[in-house]
């Protein structure tokens, strides 16, 4: 035990702290499940068109959804698209959205935040004023504007969210680094002639990264919600594309069935809608647990 690297020991404690929390376990299980579905999608639901597996197969064109049956175990959506197929491949779409948006936003945000925080001065001033400008317009509004300008489509939504999302990370990382910059171990490294890049990467970032990690985890969920809302409004993927938000949008007109059977089409909305909720819930639970585990104020009693 004594020979353990302090960072490793810290990690162990953190993990212990995380998994002591039942909601975190639920969160991880949910995400693992979705991950498995996404990875094995080609085996769970073999695609019809090899060149574009995200195209949901359909039989006929009738707009009225059909209930679960032997051939379509979760029923068909409006346009006779197979819901099961859509949900399975939609998992990949959700991860794609989350990973791309959060990955890009976090990388850019952390890099800019680190530069601004570490160097300070004019660099800091310029970067932060640009961030201020970006910051002043709410995510959804700015993202919608960008999507409108670039043209509709899921790829455009992803780009728009990535272009908008980085600004959060800049601020968080910068403020973390501001507190670390003048601490002894950083000053010591400087005196020893370690290069700036190395100091940032080896000494500062590992200590400043936790808030960004928490934020990234929560963002994985909220970005999927934002993307699905934009699909709902009509800015997203085309009909028949395996995307949960698009599937909910497709189902919106069937949310109320005929008067004698108002829940007739429940499957068109509950299944993709439930997937969104569970996916987002998973990430939020993880994020919440991470916050509890990393937050120095809450860490030890």
């Amino acid at each position, binding site marked *: 035990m004594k020979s353990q690297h302090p960072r490793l020991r810290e990690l162990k404690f953190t993990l212990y702290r995380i998994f002591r929390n039942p909601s975190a376990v639920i969160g991880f299980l949910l995400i693992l499940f979705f991950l498995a579905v996404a990875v094995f999608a080609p085996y769970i639901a073999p695609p019809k068109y090899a*060149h574009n597996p995200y195209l949901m197969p359909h039989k006929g064109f009738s707009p009225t959804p059909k209930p679960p049956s032997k051939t379509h175990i979760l029923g068909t959506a409006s346009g006779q698209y197979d819901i099961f197929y859509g949900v399975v491949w939609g998992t990949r779409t959700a991860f794609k959205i989350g990973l791309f948006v959060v990955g890009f936003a976090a990388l850019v945000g952390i890099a800019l935040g680190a530069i601004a925080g570490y160097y300070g001065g004019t660099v800091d001033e310029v970067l932060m004023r640009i961030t201020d400008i970006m910051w002043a317009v709410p995510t959804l509004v700015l993202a919608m504007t960008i999507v409108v300008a670039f043209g509709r489509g899921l790829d455009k939504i992803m780009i728009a969210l990535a272009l908008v999302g980085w600004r959060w990370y800049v601020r968080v990382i910068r403020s973390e680094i501001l507190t670390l910059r003048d601490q002894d171990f950083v000053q010591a490294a400087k005196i020893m002639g370690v290069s700036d890049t190395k100091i940032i990467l080896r000494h500062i970032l590992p200590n400043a990264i936790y808030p960004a990690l928490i934020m990234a985890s929560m963002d994985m969920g909220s970005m999927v919600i934002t993307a699905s809302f934009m699909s709902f409004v009509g800015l997203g993927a085309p*009909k028949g594309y395996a995307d949960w938000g698009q599937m909910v949008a497709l189902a919106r007109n069937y949310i109320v069935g005929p008067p004698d059977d108002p829940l007739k089409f429940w499957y068109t909305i509950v299944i993709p809608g439930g997937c969104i909720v569970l996916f987002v819930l998973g990430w939020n639970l993880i994020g919440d647990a991470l916050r509890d585990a990393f937050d120095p104020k809450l860490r030890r009693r």
Partner: protein
Amino acid sequence: MKGLVSFLSCLALILGAVGAEAEVKNPDTFVMADYRTVQTIDPAASYDVAGSMRIWNMYETLIFFDGSSTEKFVPLLAAEVPTVANGGISADGKTYIFKIRKGVKFHVGGKLTPEDVVYSFKRHMILDQDGGPMWMLLEALTGKGSTRDKDGKIIPAVFDTIDRAVEAKGDTVVFHLPKPYPPLMSILCYTAASVVGKEWSIANGCWDGNIQNAAKYNNPAPGHEPLQKIENGTGPYQLKQWEPAKQFIFERFEGYWGPRPKIKTAIVKYVKEWSTRKLMLQNGDADRVVVDTPYVPEVKAMKGLNIYEVPQLGFTAGMFCRKINPAGNPNIGSGKLDGNGIPADFFTDINVRKAFLHAFDRETYQQDVFHGLVIMPTSPNVEGLPYHKAVPVYAFDLKKAAEYMKKAWGGQVWEKGFKMIITHNTGNEMREAAAVMLAENIMSLNPKFRIDVRNVEWKDYVVKIRDFQYPMFLSGWGADYADPHNFVYPFMHSNGYYGKFMALQSDKIDALCDAGIENVDPNKRAQLYSQLQNIWHADAIGIPLYQQIVVRAYRDYVHGFVPNAMFTDDNEIIKRIYKK
């Protein structure tokens, strides 16, 4: 005495019963829920289905369609419908005389005079906003489709031509046409021919009546037309309140010259969500809602409704562009016939076009997409238009499609395969289904064929079509007036709206189209349009997709609706409606 009492109580019971049965939610209010918005209620600028609905109820035209007919007319502001027989139309078809009705009052006061009518026509034509409807009257009355040339400059002396085209003579108004124009009567029913009060209009910033000043009033920016949100018509309803994109409220005009309408207040609400509209209809909060084709089965399953099926004068087709713009165009892949794209002139080969036509499954399309509730057209001259005839169609036959593909481009298409994108406009499920169906069927012919389906917003779609970006586009046309010219010309003439973007080049077709509008003799016209309809099939110009039948759903206590193919489902002639 006892007998009288029991008789009275019986009567009371009966009255009570009648009263209970006649208990209709707000009997003198009519509520309609629609999802299209109105941009303007200026008759000279409005050119959309929602706007025309508002204008038709507040303003009146000289004549109007007789009930369900698109060819017979009844007088409104005219005292009678002019014909060649009663001397109202001259034998050469170049002069029309309208006797103006007496005793008609405007909403804000004042009596209608022939001078008001003349002013209205001139004022509307002078305004001629870009994107507006005035080209119809300008084409008929001045021979030119616009007051401006291609660069937006005012055509010299065009206003003098307008000035001479309409005049008041005694209690009549006379139109002078440069050439006979058979559809004029139908155009005169359109909202662009509405009559406004002259003095009131001038007071509100419209053209001052002096033709020298006309240029000042020409082509205002959208929203800056003087009558954008105010009205002074002679119609049965006046504007009570308009909250754009929220609701539009009509109130009965008590000084109306005609029979007093039953409905006192009519509200058109803007409700975008179908679910909300459906619930409003179900709960009786709306007397009528606009229903899109996919939801017809749901509405038919509802109780307590009156449902009407109204065929529309409209035509939608899949069209092939024969001269695609190759510059940086992702829709045609490599731009060469190398298996990774298509050449810019891919569709000049009639075999390719015929293969596409044979790959379209009309039967399934009709049943699946429209629940059978559609007219499958055979040419742009759809059912309900004069001189319509059914021409043969290319039956769904994948073998024949494959045969034609093998013949196409000397066999190269079949050997090398191709790749292209078919684009439709976002949200139009009918066009989307057609695009998907074509793509899937063509791909099933040969594994080397690959067609992707994309969608873009309608406004982008229009721009890209105009830029010759799409090898194939799916688009439609609604009637401006009920005449084949309004359909055959845009779809087949090399200078027609779609003909241009399909890059059609045929002197023969052009000559036939031009002759069609210049002839007054119905027999001669019938023959010309018959030829054109045959050519549409023989040349495989495009894929006729659908002629819509819209379903109108009213609560069952709403009566009085008269279907007419000229009116889209946004329309409602409120004066005819009553609740019982």
